[in-house]
């Protein structure tokens, strides 16, 4: 038994892994279907009102997956990961871990890495499912959408979980830490809209990478945001360690 196994067991022995996987797979399966049959659904609604649905395209299908996965999926991911990262929420549990660990890095790293990998894996499983559904029901889309576009998306999720770790250093409770993290993640694309010159550098830009790549964009156009994110993750984790180490239980 060690801290890495503890985090694996936390995922596997509780409904956390089901919630995580379901929150992405539901949209991976559902969005290509909805995009493909949206026009037929609206046609069959009947009544006086005529609803015009857009033509189903591979890009729309992938974008529909991302839109939902990065809202509902991200919310579920943050709450699931907060259950592990906000370990000071229960002082007795925190005392067990803190009095036995020689460093906060040793304590935080398994929690962060396991959560980030689990969230990224669920997201990629959903994206791969959405890509397969899109190709089967709507039409071909570049294969790079999944490994390259998905890689960028997974990197963003790794950043999101690092922000959550930092939030856990600011708030003790699961809800408090999750709330702070979500507020930061929601604010980031708004900052990108207010300051357009900053947008290509923001981690939140990576969210749209699979759609853009499916639409023919170059994978290299996201390198600036990926670079910033790759630097931001260890920096944010370092700040989280500092905050958590200073906290009294």
């Amino acid at each position: 038994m060690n801290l890495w196994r503890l985090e694996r067991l936390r995922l596997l022995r509780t409904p956390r892994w089901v919630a995580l996987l379901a929150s992405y797979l539901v949209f991976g399966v559902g969005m290509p279907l909805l995009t493909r049959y949206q026009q037929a659904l609206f046609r069959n609604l009947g009544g006086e009102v005529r609803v015009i649905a857009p033509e189903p395209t591979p890009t729309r299908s992938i974008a529909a997956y991302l839109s939902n996965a990065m809202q509902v999926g991200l919310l579920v991911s943050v709450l699931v990961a907060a259950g592990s990262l906000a370990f000071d929420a229960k002082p007795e549990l925190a005392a067990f871990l803190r009095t036995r660990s020689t460093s906060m890095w040793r304590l935080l790293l398994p929690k962060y890495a396991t959560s980030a990998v689990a969230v990224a894996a669920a997201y990629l499983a959903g994206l791969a499912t959405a890509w397969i559904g899109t190709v089967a029901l709507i039409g071909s889309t570049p294969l790079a959408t999944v490994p390259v576009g998905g890689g960028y998306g997974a990197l963003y999720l790794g950043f999101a979980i690092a922000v959550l770790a930092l939030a856990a250093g600011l708030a003790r409770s699961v809800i408090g830490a999750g709330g702070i993290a979500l507020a930061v993640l929601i604010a980031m694309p708004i900052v990108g809209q207010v300051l357009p010159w900053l947008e290509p550098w923001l981690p939140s830009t990576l969210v749209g990478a699979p759609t853009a790549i499916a639409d023919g964009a170059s994978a290299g156009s996201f390198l600036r945001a990926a670079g910033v994110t790759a630097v931001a993750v260890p920096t944010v984790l370092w700040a989280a360690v500092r905050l958590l180490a200073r906290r009294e239980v």
Partner: protein
Amino acid sequence: MALIQTSSLRKTYGATVALDDVDLRVEAGSIYGLVGPNGAGKSTLIGILGGLRRASSGEVRVDVDRRRMAVMPDTPLFDPWLTAREVVDLARAMVDPVLSEEEVERSLALVGLADVAGRRVGGFSRGMLQRLGIAATIVARPELLVLDEPAAALDPLGRYEVLELVRRLSRQGTVLFSSHILADVQRVCDTVGVLREGRLLYQGPLEALLTERTRPAYLVRVRPPIEPVAEALASQAWARTVEDAGHGVLRVEVSSVPDAERGIAAVLARTDARLVSVEPEAADLESVFLELTT
């Protein structure tokens, strides 16, 4: 040699003073009982010693490797989906990964949880969690054991067993434990510290506290009528007070033990009393504690 030493230790939470000028000294090999009413600052002091809280001012010196010191909170809690064995094994792996896994089974057996080692702790009672907390604390054979109210949640038998365990553990190291159950402290500790409102009112050998702080008294039990005996005892120069303690017992507080030892028998003989028993009143920590803290 002092294993734990604090000097002028102070801890405040805003305007509230939790610890005030505490000079704690725990000698190596001792069983130190930290007693005090709820809110006296015991958990705060233990939290500072365990590195969970920071002192506002003063010094803390713990002369033992951090990994050789184990701290148990007053209400241990664990992830409910872990088994008892996994909890103790995690504690072992975190403190000393090279330590044999047999230590896990030894610790579980010591606290009487060997039979439920494979059960998830989510269904454990408060007492079982307390025992599991102790098993997780002792698994790496710590040199210094700091226990916050280790027997508080246990039934009388459980308390007895835990206290006996604490006594046995003290043979391999030093134990500091806090309690508001004075009988527990009196049963196992050799040194005591009395804390009230953040101040250490007394610190020293338990025996010295009991003898220094209590007035010598005798319990004299006679058959009725007891009034003539009470009057005769009260007239003695060495008798400070004589009280009817009920059930035919007279409590005689004395100013001189040698005079009382010689005089009680003579008084009883003079009054032709039918004697049942005479015994010195045992000094107990509770009365000393009340005297110190009220």
